[in-house]
């Protein structure tokens, strides 16, 4: 991993606040770039989609352009690359996410109704069937896993299952009678088992109990998406709202705004556990995701997914 000179950027929140049309308190957030993997002169990453960091600090990526999973050491050395284009075991068409959980790495493909399981050396182990294509997956406090799955264009469920794939329970996140397709859904879990959900095509962040009951919901952006067109009678939005969300170790929720935000892919809104918006800041470059490791380092993409950057986040 290329270590960068320490460069602390203190970013006033005001611009993002005005752009979002919200009366948010001003916070100053420092982003100290610690390291990067990939880049235009490298062939390490081509279009990384998912990221996960294991307990030893190894960094795993799914890469949608070369149909692979990659494991890097904490200092950025490529340790293993697995997967190839295909539809068989250990193969991907467009891997869009992964999660390192204990000794296992769970990875999923765009539109595939399954999750593939690898060990920490990225050796293929098994495939777990899912009731829909997977958007997100996270581990719950008791060791069970929760996956957001899209059973149809409109209906999204949360499936809770054991590590061996045995289903435990499920609940609907969206109403099948909803008019607007929600798009892909981001997921973050807190220590109580409650989870936060962010919707790509809805100006909406929710917190729900482990059984699916809504604890709170909040609009983050100043406006929702307009309607672009209809597909099979379902209106599709013209803009993206919530690209990603992640929770840090202090319980703060970081929500990355899409094209409906003032600065698409850059505006990050910080919420408290009760849904209070604490403020916002802007990333130096557009990212498609935000992710925190166990040490509270922030990982984002740059260069359209060719680069990953790691930051220390500080609040004034």
């Amino acid at each position: 991993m290329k270590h960068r000179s320490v460069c602390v950027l203190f970013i006033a929140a005001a611009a993002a606040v005005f752009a979002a049309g919200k009366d948010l308190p001003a916070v100053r957030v420092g982003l100290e770039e610690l390291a990067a993997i990939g880049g235009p002169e490298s062939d390490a990453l081509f279009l990384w989609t998912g990221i996960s960091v294991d307990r030893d600090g190894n960094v795993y990526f799914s890469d949608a352009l070369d149909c692979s999973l990659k494991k890097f050491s904490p200092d950025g050395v490529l340790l293993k690359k697995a997967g190839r284009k295909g539809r068989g075991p250990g193969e991907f068409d467009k891997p869009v996410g992964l999660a390192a959980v204990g000794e296992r790495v769970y990875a999923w493909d765009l539109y595939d109704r399954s999750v593939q399981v690898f060990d920490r050396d990225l050796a293929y182990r098994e495939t777990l069937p899912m009731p829909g294509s997977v958007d997100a997956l996270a581990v719950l406090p008791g060791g069970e896993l929760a996956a957001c799955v899209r059973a149809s264009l409109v209906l999204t469920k949360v499936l809770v299952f054991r590590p061996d794939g045995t289903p435990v329970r499920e609940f609907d996140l969206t109403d099948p009678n909803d008019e607007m397709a929600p798009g892909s859904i981001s997921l973050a879990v807190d220590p109580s088992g409650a989870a936060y959900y962010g919707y790509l095509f809805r100006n909406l962040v929710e917190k729900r109990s482990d059984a699916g009951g809504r604890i709170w919901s909040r609009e983050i952006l100043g406006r929702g998406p307009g309607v672009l067109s209809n597909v099979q009678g379902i209106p599709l939005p013209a803009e993206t709202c919530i690209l990603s969300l992640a929770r840090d170790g202090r319980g703060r929720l970081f929500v990355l705004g899409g094209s409906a935000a003032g600065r698409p892919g850059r505006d990050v809104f910080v919420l408290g556990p009760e849904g209070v918006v604490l403020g916002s800041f802007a990333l130096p470059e557009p990212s498609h995701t935000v992710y925190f490791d166990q040490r509270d380092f922030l990982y984002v993409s740059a260069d359209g997914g060719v680069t990953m950057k790691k930051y220390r986040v500080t609040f004034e």
Partner: protein
Amino acid sequence: MTLLPAILLAASLTAAPAPMRTAGGPAARSGGAETAAAGARFAVVCLDADMLACSPCGASLLEFNRAVPPEILEERVVGVLSFREDAAVPDPRKARLARTRWTGYCRANGIRFRAAVDETHALDRLSERGMTILLFDAGAGILRRWTAPFEPGVLEDIIRFLTDEKQL
């Protein structure tokens, strides 16, 4: 836009001993600059590097790469990669990123022809609506042009054209 820039670019790709900066593909890796012999027919494949991850958009490219014999791909086909850039603020990183993406795409999909990044943006419009294939004759006059998705029989026509000097 006229197709003159396309002709000039295609001619430079095939005639020059040291072509434009290329990325990926076996010919590029082996340093095979003398791929299309002077006088041969050849094809120029215009692609949008920012759309490589789009499965429906890439289907025609993969079909083309599968259908055309490898030796033809390596010797008579060149790609031209367009990429998006703010015209007011040219950024050299964008071209390098396009090359990097092409390298990754080639590795995963076994693409067998080389490609150059069009830093002039002369051919951007040819990939705006999807992959476009231009077929040239020995004199670099355009013979045919198709934009994906291809009608049935188009790939067969392309293969026939590239392999049979007498058929036009």
